[in-house]
Each structure stands twice: as structure tokens, then as C-alpha cells.
């Protein structure tokens, strides 16, 4: 048969027509063209013939192919090998282990919740009870309790004034130097401690010491102490629990400084008391005083300080203290001295040592050759610098030595924050709670892993079973 070439523009369409892969519209077009074109019609017929030849050429030998049994027997042995111990037992093992893990984890969670749940409730109840008790105690703070505290304060005052040191001082001073008290925190009892010269008393009649936020007001006693005149017994204190006046302040009020500081116990974060302390600080600054904040890194306390620079009239201090009093929830106010004699003396010795060293260096440098003198000069300058630094420190110490502190503590009158997990875990059970948290995390992990893996593993397992059967 002569090779017939179809019309160039119709080649592809004709081929698609031949393959019956045309849209109805194109199909009609090609059919119409075929009616009028001999070559294309013959080319189409050739395509038919070629296709038959092509198919016959391959289909004829393939007709005798019978792969059914060989394929199936291969697959059967394949399935059997799939059931061979290694692979099958592995998935079996995974499937059963995940199931077991889920069950064990669920039991663990249940067990932990059943044992921990009530304990958490107990913690909650205990805290609520404590809160209620505290509220009940704080409620009549203008009644018996306040009177009781005042009595206590009076007793402390009497005690303080009854010491030899106190009697030895001028009328308007109370000195305190005596035995170390040690730190006592007996509830309802007077407790105090001494730093060797001054005594500090606290009246922890409400709650524990943890629960308050102490504010310290420091008033300078306004007398410069000559560096060499520092003597033991200069410290003094007074516990005050009532309106402040010039009469019952045991220090001259022509003071040069006034400070307020507070300490926060971070374990409980008594916010209301903290707020009061901040307000006390503002009162001082509102009266022309200064404020400053600093941090003790070591014990994580964050005292804030407020004070007056220079001499201030007694009335102003009175006004400040009266306003602090008005803030309410005042646990106690104390006035106490701060004695830094030891530091002062140490500083003096350092000054003397450095001065002598500087003098020696001066003498050497005046005698020595220039090269040596340079080195000596440098050393001498160092020594002079150290002397200056020590002198400055001495000035600071002298100023601080004249400070007298008045401490005010505010108690928390607002309801405490509701129990949170953080607070619940803050207690002695926190280890158990963290363990619970860890277990829950592990359980969630296992559950998720099981949920994700189970369908796949299950399907595979099921199919293996099916094939095996």
C-alpha cells in the first residue's frame, strides 16, 4: 500500500479522531473534512491497518501468557514470608506494647489523680481556712487586737526604758545595748534581736512574720558623732504602735534624714501590704523627701527607701508618720538606731594604714631617681586614691551612723489571692505535684503516639491476619 500523507493541518486531529479522543465538536469537524478529503480518508484507513498490525504483533505472542498461577503462588509465598516470625512478631510486639502502654498509663493517671486529688483539695481547704482565720483576725483590728498590740508595744517601751543603758542616757534618749536576744519568732510574744549595740523588737502578734511587709522609717537623730567619739551604746530603739508625736518620739526631731524601707517576702507576695509600703514611700516623697530603690541580690529582698535630706522640722516627720498611720493596717511602727561603729572603726584603721603608706611612698619618691620615682609615684597615687576612697566611705558611714530608724509593718487586710496551681505547688507537696505533671505529660505523649500509630498498626496487623487466613 502506498504511503498516504494526510493534510498537514489535520494530522493531529485525524490521529485523535482515530483514537476516539476528540471533543464532539472536533469530531464533527474531522468527520466533515473526511467526507471531502480522499488522502485523509485513506490515511485513516492506513492507521487502522497499522494499529491492527501493531496489536497483532504483540498480542498474538502474549495471548499464551498465563501468569495467574505464577503470580499468585509468588504472592502466597510472599505473604507466608511476611508472616515469618521476624516481621510479623515485630508488629505484633509494637501493637501489643502500645496497647499495654496506654492501659498502664491510664491506670497510672487514675491512681495518681485518686491519690493526689484529695490532697490538693486538702491544701486548698487549708489555705482557705487560713485565709478565713486571717480575715477573722484582721477584722476587729480597731478593737481588742489593736489594744493588745498597743499594750505589747507599751511593755516593750517600758522594758527598753528600764535598761541601765537607757537610764544612763539623757532624758530624750533610750539606749539599748545588752545581751544578744537571738531571733525569736514566737507568735504573740515580744521578740527581738540585737546587733551588739542596738536592739530591734518586733511584735509578731498577727500571723507569721512571712505575711507582712515591713516598712522602715529611718530618722536621723541629727547629731554628728565625732569620728573618735563613737562609743558602744549609742544605738537606741523604740517600738511604737500609736499616733506619733514629738513627745513620744524618743529622738530629737531636728533630723537630717528620714527613710522608709520595706521588705517583701517573696514566698507569699502580700500585695496589699506591699502597696501600703509604696504609699508610705510616696508620702515621704510628697513631703519633699527622696525615694530610691535597690536590690539585695543575695536574699532577693527589694527594699525601697524614702527619706529627707537635711534637717527637717519635727512637724514634718509627725505629718509623715501620721499619714502613714492613716494608711491603715499598720502592724507596727518602730524607731530604732543603726550603729555602724565597727565599720567606722575599721574604716578609720584603713585610712590610717593607707595614709602612712602614702607618706612612706612620698619620702621614697623625694629621694629616688626619676625612673624609680615614676613607679613609686604611681604607687603613691594609688595609695592616695585609696585614702580618699576610705575618707569618702568614712563620711558615708558617719552620716549613716546618725540615722535612727522607724519601722512600720503593714499587714494584709485584703483577701489573699485565690489558690492557684502555682501556690498549691509552692507547698511541701510541690515535688509530688511536679511528679504528677510529669506523669500527665508522659501520659499525653503516649496517648498521642498510640492514637497516631494505632490505625496504621491495626490495619497492617489486620491485613496480615486476613492474608494469612
Amino acid at each position, binding site marked *: 500500500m502506498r504511503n498516504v500523507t494526510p493534510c498537514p493541518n489535520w494530522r493531529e486531529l485525524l490521529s485523535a479522531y482515530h*483514537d476516539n479522543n476528540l471533543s464532539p465538536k472536533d469530531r464533527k469537524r474531522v468527520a466533515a473534512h473526511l467526507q471531502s478529503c480522499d488522502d485523509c480518508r485513506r490515511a485513516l484507513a492506513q492507521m487502522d491497518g497499522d494499529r491492527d498490525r501493531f496489536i497483532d504483533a504483540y498480542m498474538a505472542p502474549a495471548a499464551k501468557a498465563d501468569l495467574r498461577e505464577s503470580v*499468585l503462588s509468588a504472592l502466597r509465598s510472599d505473604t507466608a514470608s511476611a508472616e515469618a516470625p521476624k516481621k510479623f512478631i515485630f508488629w505484633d510486639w509494637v501493637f501489643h506494647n502500645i496497647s499495654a502502654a496506654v492501659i498502664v498509663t491510664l491506670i497510672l493517671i487514675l491512681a495518681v489523680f485518686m491519690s493526689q486529688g484529695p490532697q490538693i483539695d486538702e491544701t486548698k481547704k487549708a489555705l482557705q481556712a487560713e485565709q478565713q482565720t486571717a480575715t477573722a483576725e484582721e477584722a476587729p483590728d480597731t478593737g481588742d487586737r489593736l489594744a493588745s498590740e498597743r499594750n505589747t508595744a507599751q511593755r516593750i517601751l517600758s522594758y527598753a526604758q528600764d535598761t541601765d543603758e537607757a537610764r544612763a542616757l539623757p532624758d530624750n534618749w533610750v539606749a539599748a545595748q545588752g545581751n544578744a536576744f537571738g531571733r525569736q519568732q514566737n507568735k504573740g510574744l515580744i521578740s527581738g534581736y540585737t546587733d551588739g549595740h542596738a536592739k530591734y523588737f518586733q511584735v509578731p502578734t498577727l500571723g507569721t512574720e512571712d505575711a507582712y511587709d515591713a516598712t522602715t522609717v529611718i530618722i536621723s537623730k541629727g547629731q554628728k558623732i565625732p569620728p573618735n567619739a563613737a562609743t558602744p551604746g549609742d544605738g537606741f530603739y523604740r517600738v511604737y504602735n500609736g499616733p506619733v508625736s514629738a513627745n513620744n518620739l524618743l529622738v530629737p526631731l531636728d533630723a537630717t534624714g528620714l527613710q522608709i524601707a520595706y521588705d517583701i517576702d517573696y514566698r507569699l507576695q502580700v500585695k496589699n501590704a506591699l502597696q501600703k509600703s509604696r504609699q508610705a514611700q510616696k508620702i515621704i516623697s510628697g513631703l519633699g523627701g527622696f525615694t530610691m530603690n535597690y536590690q539585695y541580690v543575695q536574699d532577693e529582698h527589694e527594699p525601697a527607701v524614702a527619706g529627707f535630706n537635711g534637717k527637717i522640722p519635727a512637724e514634718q516627720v509627725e505629718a509623715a508618720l501620721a499619714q502613714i498611720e492613716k494608711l491603715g493596717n499598720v502592724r507596727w511602727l518602730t524607731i530604732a538606731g543603726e550603729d555602724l561603729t565597727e565599720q567606722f572603726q575599721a574604716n578609720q584603721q584603713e585610712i590610717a594604714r593607707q595614709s602612712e603608706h602614702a607618706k612612706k611612698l612620698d619620702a621614697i619618691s623625694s629621694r629616688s631617681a626619676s625612673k624609680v620615682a615614676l613607679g613609686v609615684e604611681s604607687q603613691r597615687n594609688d595609695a592616695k586614691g585609696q585614702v580618699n576612697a576610705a575618707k569618702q566611705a568614712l563620711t558615708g558611714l558617719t552620716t549613716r551612723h546618725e540615722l535612727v530608724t522607724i519601722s512600720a509593718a503593714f499587714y494584709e487586710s485584703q483577701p489573699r489571692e485565690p489558690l492557684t496551681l502555682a501556690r498549691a505547688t509552692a507547698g511541701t507537696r510541690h515535688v509530688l505535684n511536679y511528679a504528677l505533671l510529669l506523669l500527665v505529660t508522659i501520659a499525653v505523649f503516649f496517648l498521642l503516639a498510640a492514637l497516631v500509630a494505632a490505625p496504621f498498626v491495626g490495619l497492617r496487623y489486620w491485613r496480615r491476619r486476613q492474608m494469612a487466613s
Partner: protein
Amino acid sequence: MLTDEQIVCRVRRGDLDAYGELVERYQRRLVASAHNLVGNEDAARDLVQETFIEAYRHLEQLRDAAKVGAWLYGILRHRAHSWLSARRPTVSWEDESVEEWFVAADPAERVDMTVLLAGLPTADRDALAARYLMDMDYDAVAKALGTTPQNARVRVCRAKERLRNLLDRAEKEVGL
């Protein structure tokens, strides 16, 4: 008679006999295609058997059960190309050698059409096997060849033309 989808469904449920039916249904077309692709009948049979076994193992990857034929052809084609690249062809498809094989005696008996058609370029044999032997539409051909339906149409058309030229030459030279 079960449709391809029904058979695949049964196989997926673990019915190995149903797979036997699928083998029955496609084995000849696949053997023919494989023969066309690799030019060796025995190898074609082996390749198809391997194809069926591989397909069974990966049946979960078959997305459209109605197109199981095209899917099988895809696996076969891949295997055939691997087979071809793994060993040099046993027959040469150079044009001049074609003449040696077709001694002008009794063409009906002597001319081995499969050897003659092996003279077609691989791409053309690929397209013709998919179109004629597997009876796939252009969409399926395109998928099997990894191209677009439009391109598949062009490739099939060209393959047909080259087939025509080859046959025309054979007709003239050996009196087919």
C-alpha cells in the same frame, strides 16, 4: 463481570483470588506492552510477573482503582526502563540491521513483526504501547508518560506516523 474497582476492593480486603482475576484481565496487554518496550518476549513475561507482584505489595498506593490498568502500565514501564538500562539490548535496532533480518522469502512467515517494530524509537513504542496495547486514553497515556494530555496526543500522533513510515519501508524492502 466485576469492574476493576470491585476487584481492587476485594483484593484490598485480602482476596488473593480476586487479584488472580486482575492478573488474567491485564496480563496479555501488559506482556504485549512489555514485549514492545524491551523487545524480548521472555523478559517481558518476567517483567509483567514482577509488575503484578510489586503492584500487589503497593496496592494501597493506587488512588483511583478504576485506572488500575494505567497504574499497572506505569509500574511495568518503570521496570522495563530499569531492565533496559541494566543491560544492553540483545537486538540492535539500527536501521541497516533491520534489512538483514527480513530476507525476502515468504514475508508472512519470515518477518517477525515484533523485531521490525523494535526499530521504532523507544518513546514511540512507549506511546503506541500505552495507546494501542493498553488502550489508554490520552489522559492515561499522559500520566503514564509523565506529560500533559496535549503532549500525549502529539506524541501518539508522531509515533503513528513513524510506525507508518517503518511499515511503508518494510513493505517496499521485504514485500511485507
